[in-house]
């Protein structure tokens, strides 16, 4: 394969490419899905191929093929060149890539137990145990469970001389309980995943969680609707991490800031004129980072698809906006070098700026202290729906479950919670972040993130703990 990749780079340069890179990826997925305790879906899916990206006449071209045939590779290189020339038909300036160190490296995520060696029996037994526990609650009429894993082997080679091989293994799971009654259906769910092996699954305590989820789903049928109005809002870490994803992670992607995602994902309120001005993104309690180096983080890797090493970047410091996620193409807009965030879903697609692990850093509160300190409010957990405008300013989130807080105590469960706000006002109203106690802050890996045309889906990570906001509009329809 090494010779094939080198030949593709050689052909590209010979035919006028001022820059070229080739990515070969081979990804094996092994999902097991149960529905109502029965295996609904179990497969092994292998997806492999070559993608070549070139700059010719100052324009980008990309072409990809799953074929292993050298003749097809040559045709794919020719197609990438043809596309780049067509791109140059409509250019306003030549593509310029910021410098990067030339690297020859090989890296592999360490796994304690290879998830691909775990038998289907063991996987399905675990999910059946979850099902059995959940259906002991009579109101639970439907259950779901899934264990997912992938092994990704990626080779990146550039005409500048880099040769990088990396192997990433990810393991995750999801369980759902659906309770039905009185014309209502309520779901409780849990999902998480890590860049690690089967050891991830044992850390998720799925059977124990299944019992709690089933009980909560049944209780939600009887629970009153979440009250409407402006109140103190506490987000549990499982929904706080998605809030970070949607209202911080996406707006800091520099390609969308510059307009490249306009037709689909939209732009950003963090416009280029705000860079370097210490724009007030949130309150002094808000510290956010992008960190692709977190061991086990779903959004971790060793190098991005520009060949830039994984790194940790401060995004928001004491509420002030500091940095975007960048690529070699976009970092130059601010005279910077890339912070290594350019990732493609697979060989078939071009790299886009993607979230790595975007984290709300731990605060100095404990969860108990935060509730005890709340006179009146709503605690919401587990995302059910989320919607944001095309600049990530106005948002509306729905949760699976919520609790009313009065005089520092949780007093009752309520259902169908939702809240809506304006992003900078929302984060400016943040007055407490938990994480003081061990286990309160964790890196979640359950988010499927879609971006680009054609759509590319990746799974970033998000560190978060329970977090509190003041004066937020709560309630469906508000």
């Amino acid at each position: 394969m090494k010779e094939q990749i080198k030949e593709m780079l050689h052909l590209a340069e010979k035919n006028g490419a001022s820059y070229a890179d080739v990515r070969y990826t081979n990804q094996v997925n092994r999902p097991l899905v149960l529905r109502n305790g029965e295996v609904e879906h179990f497969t092994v899916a292998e997806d492999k191929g070559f993608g070549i990206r070139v700059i010719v006449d100052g324009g980008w071209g990309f072409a990809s093929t799953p074929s292993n045939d050298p003749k097809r590779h040559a045709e794919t290189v020719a197609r990438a060149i043809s596309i780049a020339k067509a791109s140059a038909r409509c250019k306003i300036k030549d593509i310029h890539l910021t410098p990067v160190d030339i690297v020859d490296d090989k890296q592999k995520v360490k796994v304690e137990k290879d998830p691909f060696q775990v038998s289907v029996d063991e996987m399905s037994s675990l999910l059946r145990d979850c099902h059995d526990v959940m259906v002991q609650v009579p109101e639970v009429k439907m259950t779901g469970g899934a264990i997912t894993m992938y092994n990704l082997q990626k080779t990146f080679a550039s005409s500048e001389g880099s040769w990088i091989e990396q192997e990433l293994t990810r393991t995750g799971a999801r369980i759902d309980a659906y309770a039905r009654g009185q014309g209502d259906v309520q779901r409780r769910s849990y999902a998480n995943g890590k860049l690690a092996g089967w050891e991830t699954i044992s850390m998720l305590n799925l059977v124990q969680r299944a019992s709690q989820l089933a009980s909560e789903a049944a209780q939600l049928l009887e629970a009153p609707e979440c009250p409407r109005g402006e109140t103190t809002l506490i987000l549990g870490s499982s929904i706080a991490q998605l809030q970070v994803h949607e209202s911080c992670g996406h707006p800091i992607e520099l390609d969308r800031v510059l307009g490249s995602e306009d037709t689909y994902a939209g732009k950003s309120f963090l416009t280029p004129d705000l860079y370097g001005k210490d724009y007030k993104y949130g309150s002094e309690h808000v510290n956010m980072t992008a960190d692709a180096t977190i061991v086990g983080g779903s959004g971790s890797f060793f190098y991005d698809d520009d060949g830039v090493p994984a790194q940790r970047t401060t995004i928001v410091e004491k509420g002030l906006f500091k940095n975007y996620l960048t690529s070699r193409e976009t970092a130059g807009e601010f005279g910077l070098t890339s912070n290594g965030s350019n990732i493609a879903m697979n060989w078939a697609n071009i790299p886009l700026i993607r979230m790595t692990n975007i984290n709300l850093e731990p605060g100095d509160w404990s969860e108990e202290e935060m509730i005890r300190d709340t006179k009146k409010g709503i605690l919401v957990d587990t995302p059910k729906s989320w919607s944001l405008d095309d600049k990530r300013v106005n948002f509306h989130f729905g949760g699976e479950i919520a609790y009313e807080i009065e005089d520092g105590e949780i007093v009752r469960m309520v259902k169908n919670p939702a809240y809506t706000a304006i992003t900078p006002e929302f984060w400016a109203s943040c007055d407490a972040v938990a994480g003081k106690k061990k286990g309160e802050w964790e890196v979640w890996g359950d988010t499927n993130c879609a971006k680009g045309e054609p759509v590319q889906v990746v799974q970033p990570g998000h560190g978060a703990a329970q977090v509190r906001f003041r004066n937020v509009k709560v309630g469906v329809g508000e």
Partner: protein
Amino acid sequence: MIQREQAEKILKTVLAASTADETQVILRSEDLSQTRFNNNWIHQHLFRETYSVEIKVVDQNRVGMATVNDLDEAALKKGVADALHNASFVKANPNLVPMPEAKPVLEIDGINQNTLNLSDMDRADLVASMIDVAKENSVDASGSFANELSVLAVANSKGVMTYHAGNNLRIRSIMANGLQTGYSEAMSTDVEAIDFVAVAKDALWKSKLKAEESITLDLGSYDTIFEPQAVADLLRFPGYIAFNGQSLADGRSFMAKAMGQKIFDEKVTVIDDAYEPRHVPMPFDAEGMPKEKVVIIDQGVAKGVVYDHASAFRAGKETTGHATAGRRGGASPGHLIIAPGNSSIEEMIKQTKRGVYVTRFHYTHCPEPMQIIATGTTRDGTFLIEDGEIVARLKNLRFTDSMLRVFANVDSLSQEQFLVKDWWFTFTMLVPAMKIKDFTFTGNTTF
């Protein structure tokens, strides 16, 4: 493109290699050329060629699956071996529905030569024609131009052997007049049927109209006119939540207790028709079963849902040919159509005393699936109508409303239908523009 002969050879190789009681194989391939432009230049431009061969075996009531994207005989045989191996570890399910027997499938010529022959430079030239419109009017053009050629071939060990190839293209245009934007799109199987400059100009007028200022609307309910792509987002929710047999059986669909009842305004008729020539026609589904035309809502009355083979079998019905491929499978509408009315967008505006004009939505979601309470924001051209005229540009709005209420409150539908996709690319739909009485806006944004 994978030709029929090659596809059948691949399918037969898989079937011959399987020792299972039943075997199904789905071959999908896609050649996609996509040009994206932004601020008057092409910034992303690709061609990708993808294949997948999904193999499903049933052996002694145990299901095993494997997917490969390598078409070599050895790789296909390894895929079959993997599927058989996987089946051997799965608990037997005595309630499995047997795979379907072959049924006659119509031949449809899905290849448009004009579209097939479009070169990379041809695409760039068409994009350039739209950028020229922007430059001539001192605005910035952004957009996306996708040209897709896809093949679906399905076979099973009970005699199913089907093949279909088809192509289509879609152009999307945003014109940015400073902070004010306008949007338009067009989709067809024939590139000659799309007037790219007209699409650009349709986006342009929305970026220019009342551009000097955008005002904040008082929240509440307004008569609202939706362009077709916004209608697609509204129909998407019942489309994926409620219009299939499995959600009906699970009680997750509002249709479960509404069959035969009037649930929408009588002006609303929704069908799924894969043979409609203005759509992207498709003669069979991912089980190789012929597509049936399904009347879902007939003049406001709930009439039917779509089925795959298994959900139909369990419901005591025949499949409607709506099985999907991929990880989860199941049934889904694929060719939704809202029947036309007798109005036009211009007439709707004229007939509106005070209302809102919505060009498109962004990132819609559904917090409450049973009542189909959905939310989302408007973008790229939201306007205030007073006394039959557009009088102001509005800052974008968040809506939160029940789609059951929305489709019960239809005032009028346009005579002309348009082929569009929803924001999520879930469905391609043929829908008219629509005017709704008392559509609920629940939030403002700052731009």
